[in-house]
């Protein structure tokens, strides 16, 4: 559930970001790309610590958020979404950016000469052309968010019903009831294999 919301967040933020990275040429683009992909190489626990430092009650933004809006992200469901999105975003951005680079930018030029604004050209021409890339990125992103453990437990904790995710439940169950852990693990395994099997066809044909 939180994985789905996190994927939606990634799509809304990641697709425009990928477009900027693929099409626009601005100073510091390398830095932005490095920042986007850093969660890939960062141990998720470190990501969680980083999120705490930024969005924690005493964090860089968290303190301000708490003071102005009374919003506190750590140890809430929204916090889980944020942690999952943070870790899963690179999968989407890299996939979509690749698709965008593969798509011929001249189609956008052709659309412009026909009177299409940048947004219309993106919505009606570019997006359909890169749809396979967006779909693949979205599914990867969702799968990563579903399996997210380290950043979630560090940033959002493990409260059943509030911030407990499947991997967290598996970890907890393993300590108390090994059979339940196996069942949960199997469910995760089946879901993952199903998704990857569905995706492979997409990759092969696309």
């Amino acid at each position, binding site marked *: 559930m939180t994985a789905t919301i996190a994927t939606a967040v990634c799509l809304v933020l990641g697709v425009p970001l990928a477009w900027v990275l693929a099409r626009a040429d601005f100073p510091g683009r390398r830095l932005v790309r490095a920042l986007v992909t850093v969660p890939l190489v960062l141990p998720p626990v470190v990501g969680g610590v980083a999120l705490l430092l930024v969005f924690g009650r005493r964090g860089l933004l968290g303190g301000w958020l708490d003071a102005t809006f009374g919003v506190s992200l750590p140890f809430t469901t929204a916090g889980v979404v944020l942690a999952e999105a943070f870790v899963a975003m690179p999968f989407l951005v890299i996939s979509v950016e690749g698709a965008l680079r593969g798509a011929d930018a*001249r189609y956008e*030029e052709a*659309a*412009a*000469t*026909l*009177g*299409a604004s940048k947004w219309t050209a993106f919505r009606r021409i570019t997006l359909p052309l890169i749809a396979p890339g967006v779909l693949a990125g979205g599914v990867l992103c969702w799968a990563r968010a579903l399996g997210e453990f380290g950043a979630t437990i560090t940033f959002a904790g493990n409260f059943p019903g509030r911030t407990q995710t499947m991997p967290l439940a598996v970890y907890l169950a393993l300590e108390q009831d090994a059979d339940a852990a196996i069942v949960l693990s199997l469910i995760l395994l089946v879901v993952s294999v199903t998704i990857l099997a569905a995706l492979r066809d997409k990759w092969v044909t696309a």
Partner: protein
Amino acid sequence: MTLRARLTVKRDPFVLDIELSAAAGEVVALLGPNGAGKTTALRALAGLTGLHEGEIVLDGIRVDREPPERRRIGVVFQDYLLFPHLSALDNVAFGPRCRHVPRREAREQAARWLSRVGLAEHARKKPRQLSGGQAQRVALARALAAEPKLLLLDEPLAALDARTRLDTRAQLRHHLAGFGGATVLVTHDPLDALMLADRLVIVEEGRIVQTGDAATITAQPRTDYVARLVGLNLYRGRAEGGTVFLPDGFPLVTASAEHGEVFVAFPPSAVALYASRPDGSPRNTWQATVSSVARHGDALRIELAGEIPVAADVTPASAVHLDLAPGRQVWASVKATEVRAYRA
């Protein structure tokens, strides 16, 4: 719907600097060798490449600061760039849809355009199911359906095979005649330019070297490129009455009397070759060495080196008779009546 434009685009070390105009209903061809800057000029007009200097005025309104989508300039790209995920009909309807024509009506307009280019029964096909000639016509219909004030065509026939090209050229000519706005067409094929355009603008290395109608340009080329294009031998020299002296002093006797700097041109078919010095008229006769022999239509095109480089057309029979092969020494002569001189 007239165009008046001055374009300067710098792309180190290349500089494009040309002035262009086209009246309503007029077809102007930009003709030039590859890399002359023709496509850059087209992209600059459409707003896809920025101008460093200059202006583009359409119907008295400056559009060079407008983004491409607000210029009302249609483009038929060299490889058409039909949107691969849309049917032919939706490709053509895209322009009207962008002008907020309701979907139904846009599709009706698109259907009318497709039937006008003779593709009514292919409306539902995707671009990859269309042949090259059909795709070209869809691209033309798509550009025209957006109701542009100026239509730009980039090598519209270059991607087609020779046979399709002939048919498509005739159809394109017909559709351009029915278009009320100005048209600028870019090509490196002189035949396309001569067949489709009312006026030719020859571009070399980013500059205009000659403009005029087809008859003037084919009769009086002003650069080597144009001369080769229309198949003439071209030289520049100083005329003194009926004789033109080329820079190294070589005299050519001409039919007309001119004075001062002139171009001299004569067709390769006017050059006669002899094994030994010909008798009679001694004028315009010189010794030359064959540097290459190539087939040219029914004749053979002989390139000669010597006091002046010259191309000559001979029949295969006389080539055999003269034993023409690279390195062979021959005498060349041109009748003065075939040599035309005109002011530089």
